[in-house]
Every structure is written in C-alpha cells, then in structure tokens.
C-alpha cells in the first residue's frame, strides 16, 4: 500500500500543486512558485526511489480495472520498467530544473501563478503518461499533455498568434490522435489486450502475420507522428514557440514531444515483426530529420531554429527505432532532452537578457552574458555531435544502427543531416554571441535562478552520454534492453563519418559567419529558389492552408448553407405548403360549407325577427297578455 502511494505521488504531487495553484494561486502570488518547485522536486525524489530498484532488475507493475469491455478489463496503474525509469529520470530532473528556471524567466508576468499551475498540470500528465501500463492510459495522459501544451502555448493569449498557435497544436495533434485511437481499437480487437507488458516479442511473433496488428501498429505510430511533430504533421511545433521559452524547453523540446518516441519504443516488438511498418517509420523519420534540418538553415528567429532542430532530432530518434536501433533511439531521447533543454533555456536567457528574438539583431553577447555563452557552447557542441559530449554517443549509435541494418540511403541522409545540424547550430552560436553588437539594447546576464539550471544542464549535456558509451561498456543499453542484450560494436567508419560531418558543418559555419560574413548573402541570392524553399519551410503551411484548411472551411460553410436551404428549407416548405392548402380549404369552408350553415341561421333569425315584435319589454303588456290568456282559457273551459 505504501509502495502504491509512493508511486501514485510521483504524478500526484504535481497534481496537488496544480489544484492548489488553480484555486489559491491568486492569493499565493509569488509564493506559488514554491508550491510548484517543491512538488516537482518531491516527485523527482520519489522517482529516484523508484528508479534505483529498477537498475538492479526489478520491475514494478500495478494495475486495477477501470472499465470492463468484453470481459477484458481495461486497466489503470503503473508500470515502472527500465524504459519508464529512464523517462521518469528525464522528466522529473529536467522538469524540476525548468520549473526553477521559470521563476526567473516569468518573474514579471501578471499571470505568474497560472503559469506554474499549468507547468504542474503538465508534469502530472507527463508523469502519468510515462508510468502508463496500458495503451488506454497512455492515450488518456497523451491528450492531457496536449491540453497543458495548448494552455502553455497560448499562455500569452492576448497575442493573436499565440492563441492561433495553441489551437493549431491541439488540432494537429488530434489528427494524429485519431490514428492512435483507431490503432488502440484495432489492436485491442485483434489481440484482446492493451497492456504494455503483453506487447512483447512472444506476442509479436504470435501475430506476426496478422494484417490487423500490422495496421494497428502503423495507426499507433500516427499518434507519434502528431505528438513528436514528424512529417507531415510537423507544422505545429515551430508555431508552438509562441509560448514562453521555458515551456518550449520543457514541453516542446525535452519531454512532451519525446512522448511519441516513447510510444514507438513501447511498441518496438511489434515493429520488429512488421518490416513494412518499420520501413514506413524509418522513412518518415529520415524525411523529418533531413527536412527540418534544411528548414533550420535559414531561419532568423532563434527559437525557430531550435524548434526545427528539435523536429530534426526527433526524426533521428524515429529513424533509429525504425531501423531497429531500440537503444539508440531511446538513448538519443535522453541526451537530446538535456542538451535541447539547455539550448532553449540558453535562448530564453538571451531573450530575457537582450529582449530580442531575431538573431539579426543580436551579436556580441559573449561578453555581456558569459554564463549563458559558455553553457550554450557546451550544448552546441553536444548537439553537433562532437566527442565526448552526450550528442556524439547517441547520434553515432543511430548512424551505426542504420549502417548495420543496411539502410544505406538512410545512413547517408542522416550523415548529411548531421552536417547540416552542426552548420545551423554554429550559425546560431556565431550570430548570437560573436561579432559586433547589432542593436542598442543593453543586455545583461540573467539571475541565478536562471543560470544555475543552465550550469547543471551543461554538466548533464557533457556527461549524460557516458553511460551509453564504450567507456562504460554500454551500460545504458544493457539496462534498457535488460535481458536480451544488443551487441554494440563501435564501427570506425561510422565514427569517422559522424565526426567528419560535424566538423565540416563547423568549418562551413565558421567560414560563412566569422571569416566571410557577406558570403552567405551572395550564396542565398544565387540559389534563391533553394534559399526561399528553406526560409518558407517548403511552403508547408501555405500548402495546408490552401488545401486541407480551405477545404474544411468551405465544406463547413457549404454544409451550413445546405442545412439552411435544403434540410430546413424542406421543413419550412412543408409548413408553407400546408398553410397554402389550408387557405384553399378555408375558402371552400367559408363560402360553401359555412355558407349553408349561415343561411340556416339567417333564415331563423329573420323569421324570429318578426315574432319578436310583440315582445315590448313593458311589464304591463305582459300582464295584459296573461289576462287575455286567462280569459281565453276560461272561455274555452266554459
């Protein structure tokens, strides 16, 4: 019982914080940050209590029935296995840091308590999602994280673009979620289970030939496409940057968007027995990784670059899972959470310090914001994939997975993407911190509440890759796949390709932005088509606006007109025709049927009009009549 309570409190503490802040936030004012911080740190501590036994091989699985469908109980509860433990670690640790950071970043916001309420709601939902033992529970929390993301993107809802972005995120996610939902149903009816513990290689082999299960796994992947912003549903994530920067760091970089990867990782045994399905996964991941990196090359908004970089990195993870690199994908998830959170928080610190978001107006912040600068450098090297920082180990493993499973096209595309990653990240670094100052604002270093998390994360970004590196004998991979150990051999060729592409990216960025600053402009003019394709993100938004959204709006208008004109028109016409019919009937009634009746009445009244003349109304006359009558009777009687 105590154990259950301990687990329940992991998401429970943030929930309590959310409830408290919702109802008493306005009274607590600044103190509300403490509620949220203590809740997140508390659940962080509790998570570590749960994670430690998992490292020695213990798995916790608690369930209780929620609904019973076809005698199959749909359960709620908690499943803490290595994968969940890793996610718990990431979410609570990074989450706590970001909550602390937010106290500095959101310091002057009038809706300060609300922000922390939403953060707590998010942490609750995300932790609930992470410990889900069934597909249904994960779907439930899946939607809840979507909700908190909707609130946080639209946090500054007075801004039209923020409100719009929140809605776009929610609805785009819903499209994926419908696939997810259908996937759950298909899967449930095919296998009679929704438990994750049942989704294991044994079950996968039982249903290896089943068309329904194959379709189900692809449909479930649709959910991941939406949440992890994969092509073609990636359009919401860049817009989501309208939210406050800590939110971008926590939700739209480190944790929530990784939920899609988490889901695919949970379903990994299924994808292994359906090569076609995993082929689709790998291709979508590669397209996303490459496309997003391409878009990131030319963005000017510092957060937009990071947003596309996030999409691209998520693409890497999806690709890894698609080509069969289970531990590679999840490992990258963890390292990415650290350095991407760091990048966003650094960007937030820059925005906070210099009050601009466009990189063309930055520059030379190196001196004014030293802590931010140095932590940002660590993060940039980490994401670009330079050894021995975190990003190198995980990215290398993804490339290795693609290479070893003979997906050579994917391998080379990813290598190219690695180069682009390195290029756009150093471009960002150089434009922001190096060179001359391009605006007159006085920038200042951020307060300790913001820089302290930066330092912790920088440390994390540097070392978090080590547990998965050969230096520690791939401990992390062994931990994740507990039991069926994947053999990982470092491949000299892959490593050199990986490092080389990162170095080329760095070199190019140095050339374009430090040595020959005018060159990039000339190049852009020469290849204007390519340049504007990247700048306008291949016109995806415009394309969707012109097709899907326009079709949606037109059909909705058309249906409204149809409803008024045809469906309701039929009803009203029935009414009008009935009235017309009754007019005709009314005429007949009045002049023929009623005419006869009226004639009868007229006849009677005319005749009686004559008779009524003797009725004078004078009592004397009546008495006289009485007397006359009497006399007549007397006469007759005699």
């Amino acid at each position, binding site marked *: 019982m105590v154990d259950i309570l301990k687990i329940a409190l992991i998401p429970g503490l943030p929930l309590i914080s959310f409830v408290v802040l919702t109802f008493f936030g306005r009274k607590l004012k600044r103190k509300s940050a403490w509620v949220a911080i203590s809740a997140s740190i508390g659940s962080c501590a509790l998570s570590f209590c749960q994670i430690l036994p998992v490292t020695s091989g213990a798995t916790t699985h608690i369930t209780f029935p929620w609904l019973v469908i076809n005698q199959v109980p749909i359960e709620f509860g908690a499943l803490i296995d290595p994968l969940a433990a890793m996610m718990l670690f990431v979410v609570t640790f990074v989450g706590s840091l970001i909550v602390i950071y937010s106290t500095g970043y959101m310091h002057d916001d009038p809706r300060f308590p609300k922000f922390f309420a939403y953060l707590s709601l998010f942490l609750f939902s995300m932790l609930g999602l992470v410990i889900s033992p069934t597909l249904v529970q994960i779907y439930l929390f899946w939607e809840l994280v979507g909700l908190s993301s909707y609130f946080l993107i639209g946090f500054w809802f007075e801004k039209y673009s923020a409100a719009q972005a929140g809605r776009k995120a929610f609805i785009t996610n819903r499209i994926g979620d419908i696939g997810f*939902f259908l996937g759950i149903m298909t899967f449930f009816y095919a296998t009679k289970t929704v438990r994750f513990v049942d989704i294991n290689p044994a079950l996968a082999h039982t249903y290896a030939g089943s068309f329904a299960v194959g379709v189900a796994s692809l449909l479930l992947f649709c959910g991941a496409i939406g949440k992890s912003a994969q092509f073609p549903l990636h359009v919401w994530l860049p817009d989501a940057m309208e939210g406050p920067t800590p939110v971008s760091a926590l939700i739209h970089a480190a944790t929530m968007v990784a939920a899609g990867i988490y889901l695919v990782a949970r379903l990994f045994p299924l994808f292994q027995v359906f090569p076609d399905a995993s082929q689709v996964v790998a291709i979508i991941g590669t397209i996303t990784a490459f496309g997003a990196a391409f878009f990131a090359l030319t963005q000017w908004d510092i957060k937009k670059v990071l947003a596309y970089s996030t999409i691209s990195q998520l693409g890497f993870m999806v690709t890894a899972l698609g080509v069969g690199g289970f531990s590679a994908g999840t490992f990258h998830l963890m390292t990415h959470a650290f350095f991407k959170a760091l990048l966003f928080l650094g960007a937030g610190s820059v925005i906070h310090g210099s009050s601009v978001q466009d990189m063309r107006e930055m520059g030379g912040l190196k001196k004014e914001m030293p802590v931010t600068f140095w932590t940002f450098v660590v993060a940039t090297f980490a994401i670009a994939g330079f050894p021995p920082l975190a990003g190198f180990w995980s990215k290398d493993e993804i490339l290795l997975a693609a290479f070893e499973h003979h997906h050579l096209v994917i391998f080379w595309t990813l290598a190219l993407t690695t180069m682009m990653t390195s290029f756009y990240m150093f471009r960002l670094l150089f434009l922001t911190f190096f060179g001359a100052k391009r605006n007159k604002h006085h920038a200042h270093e951020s307060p300790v509440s913001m820089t302290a998390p930066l330092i912790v994360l920088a440390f994390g970004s540097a070392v978090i890759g080590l547990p998965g590196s050969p230096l520690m004998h791939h401990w992390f991979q062994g931990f994740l796949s507990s039991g069926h150990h994947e053999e990982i051999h470092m491949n000299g060729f892959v490593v050199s390709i990986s490092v080389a592409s990162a170095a080329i990216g760095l070199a190019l960025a140095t050339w374009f932005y430090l040595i020959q600053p005018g060159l990039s402009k000339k190049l852009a003019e020469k290849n204007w088509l390519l340049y504007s394709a990247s700048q306008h993100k291949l016109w995806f938004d415009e394309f969707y606006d012109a097709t899907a959204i326009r079709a949606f709006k037109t059909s909705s208008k058309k249906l409204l007109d149809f409803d008024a004109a045809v469906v309701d028109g039929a009803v009203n016409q029935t009414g009008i025709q009935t009235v017309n019919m009754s007019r005709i009937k009314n005429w007949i009634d009045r002049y023929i049927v009623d005419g006869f009746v009226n004639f009868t009445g007229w006849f009677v009244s005319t005749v009686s009009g004559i008779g009524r003349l003797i009725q004078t109304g004078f009592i004397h006359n009546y008495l006289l009549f009485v007397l006359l009558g009497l006399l007549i009777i007397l006469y007759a009687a005699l």
Partner: protein
Amino acid sequence: MSFLSWLILLPIIGIVGILFVHRDRTQLVRVIATIVTGIELVLTIVLMTRFSLVESGMQFVEHVFWIPQLGVYYHVGIDGISLIMLLTTTLLSFLACIASFGIKERVKEYFVLYLLLVMGMIGTFVSLDLFLFYIFWEVVLVPMYFLIGIWGGERKEYAAIKFFLYTLFGSLFMLVGILALYLTNTPHTFDMLALAQANANYSLHFQQIIFLALFLGFAIKVPIWPFHTWLPDAHVEAPTPISVILAGVLLKMGTYGFFRIAYPIVPQGAHWFAPALAVLAVIGIVYGGFVAFAQTDFKKMVAYSSVSHMGFVLLGLSVFTSTGFHGALLQMFTHGLITGCLFLLVGVLYDRAHTRDMDAFGGLWAKLPVYGSILIFCSMASLGLPSLAGFVSEFMVLLGSFPVYRWITVISCIGILLAAAYLLYMIQRVLLGKQNPKWAQLKDISAREIFTLAPLMILILLVGIYPKIVLQLMTPTLEALIRSVGGTLL
C-alpha cells in the same frame, strides 16, 4: 413507499401551491419551485441507494387499473436505463430551476409551466404503459411550447411553433405505431413488458413497419439527421434554463424511446434497420460538426454540437453490442451534463453582453478568469478530453461499434476532430486574443451561476475518472436487453 408516484405527483403539488401565491410574490414562487425540484432530486438519490444493482428487471413497480375498458394501466417502474435518465432529469431540472431565477417577467406562469414540464419528463421516463407514456410524452410538449413562445428571444413564435408542430408530427406516427401494437396483440394491451414478451408473434414485415413509425417519432425528438432543424431554432430562442432542459433531457427522450420501446418490442425490425441507423448516425456526427464550425452564434454552435453528439448515441444504439449500448446510454447522461453546462455558460455571457455573436467577443479570459476557466473545462469535456466524462462515453461507443461497422466508426472519429476544431475556434474567438474594449465592464460569473454549474462539473470529472459509478447502474439492465433483442455481448 411509492417513490415513483411521488415523483410524478410532487410537481403537481408544487403547481397547486404556486397557484395560491399572489403573482407579485415572485420570490416565494421561486422558492416553492426550487424546493419541489430539490425534493425530486433528493428522492431520486434515495431511489438510487435503494436500487438493486443485480436485478435486471423493473423495480419500484406500481401497477393499478386506470381505464379497465381499454386495458389501460397506471403502470410505472424503473430499471437501469430509466434510473440514469431520471437522475439526469431531476438533477438538471433542479439546477435549471435555480438558473431560472434570472427570469423576471411573468414569474408565476413560468414556474407553473416549468413544473408541468418536469412532471411530464419524469412521467415519460418511468411509465411502462404505452398509453401513459404517450400522454406524458405529449404533456412535455405543451409547457415547452409556451416556455419558448413566451419567454424566448426574437423569433420565439416561429421557433415555438416549429418545435411543437414538428415533434407533434413525429409523435402522431408513434401513436399509430402504438395503436397498431395494441390492436395486434390479444388480449389488447398497452403494457410495454407484455408487448415485449410477445414479440416473437410479430412478423418481420409488421415489425419493420412498426419500427419505422416509432422511429419517426423518436428520430425527430433526438433529433437524428435530417430531422434536426427544429433544434437550433428552438435552442437559440429558448431562455437559458429551457435550453438546458431541452438539450439535457428532451433530446434523450427520443433515444430513451429506442431503448425502452422500439428495441424490446420490435427487435427484428430494429435489427433490420440498424445499418441505416448507423449511417444516419455518422452523417449526423460529421455533418453536425461541420455546421457547428461554421456558426457565429454561440448558442447555435452548441445546438449543432448536440446534433453531432447525439449521433454518437445513435451509433452506439445501432450496433447491438453491450459496449455500444453502454456507451450510448452513458453518452446520453454525459451529454446532458456537458451540454447543460455549455448552455448555462452561454446564458451567463448572454445575460451580461446581450449578444451571442462569437466574433463580437475576444480576450474575455483576461477579464473573466473564472468564467473563462469554466468554459474551457466544459469545452474540453465536450470535445472528449480523456479524464472527463465525454471521452468515456464516446470511447465506449466507438469501441462498441468498431467490430460491427468498421468504416463507419473510422469516419465517426472525424467527429472527434471536428469537435476539437469548433470548440477551440469558439474558445479562441470568445476568450483569447485581444480584449475587445466594448466588454470592459463585464462582471465575472456570480456565485449563484457557479452553484448551478459546480455539481455538473464535479459529475463530469467523476464520471470521467471513474465511470464505473454510473456504469454499474446500467449493466444488468443493458445485458438483459442485449440478450432479449439478440445482440452480441461484445
């Protein structure tokens, strides 16, 4: 103690009481009506505690002769289906009664008609005799007509007449169906249970015709596409509490009719028409969603969302699986709660701003934080956010229909997307964005208004988190129904 007779009788006592009060003492009139509806609610809750969760048949039955020459009985009783509807009715009528305090004109007449309406609704949900059922069914129409026609908005006469005639038109077909059943059976009887027991004697052809006749009556009430056009008009013109009752209870009378009359008495006819029902349901879901999206009138949008959501009830009904039936009945309950909330919220805004044009608002959340949060809560419930009630019922309906009508279920899922689209669009236009200076003087939601909303919101959350509290009431009945009409216990 004869609970059900008291439930029917109490509003009448209330009406008599109100008639003795002078028309100027409006406060007393309100108090009487509130007390009466409050006692009704308490009685229903007591009824629930005494309700046996293992029995599938009728409970609290009262069975006395009424018109012996015609074989008409005063026969009332409840099972799991009726109990859910009874709870919805008494809860909503209590809350709507409190919401009616805003009515300032002709208060006495209003509450007399209101209580009459309550009596009719309760009677409909407890009667087990078709004759009695038909009487209550029609009793509901009359006060509704006046409540819309007198206390309504601009085009109230049009809406009231349309509502009245349209529903009456449907119920005439229903009457024909009832009479045919009466005359076919020997000995002649109006007793629903007896008719259901004898259903093996009816030929398929006869069942089809009867089902069609009953269907027309019920379909207009639900309303099923394409019989829905009276609904937006009636909703837009009706005063807020009446909209709540209309959406929360009246619409359910139609689907209740399927559960109580059409399915048990003519099961083969129902089976024969089930695919058609499913198609109509999915059309309603998608069509209602699209049209709701195009609305600018807040109330009309909610009305069309009802068309869409009632489509889910019909979909659940059409599949003849246990899960589908559970989902449909639960959706009837949850939709009552959620749409009740939404209509109350529209009313709160309309009382202050005197407009329902969503484009005229903007940025209200900053001005009305509590109202905004409640509106978002209810919209989330309506768009089927997991952990709120709407999700569970829609989930069960879709889960129940998936193995039966695969593609129809897939298309219905679009309805979930549409719900998100039109509700979020509404939230954006009303609550988010730049604040319109025109509404700088608006006051936030009052304590009385919160009081009317809070019980519904608590129930929405409760049912969403642990639906078993409601589902256990209906399971024995629905499983018995499935067995008797020949569906699958899937």
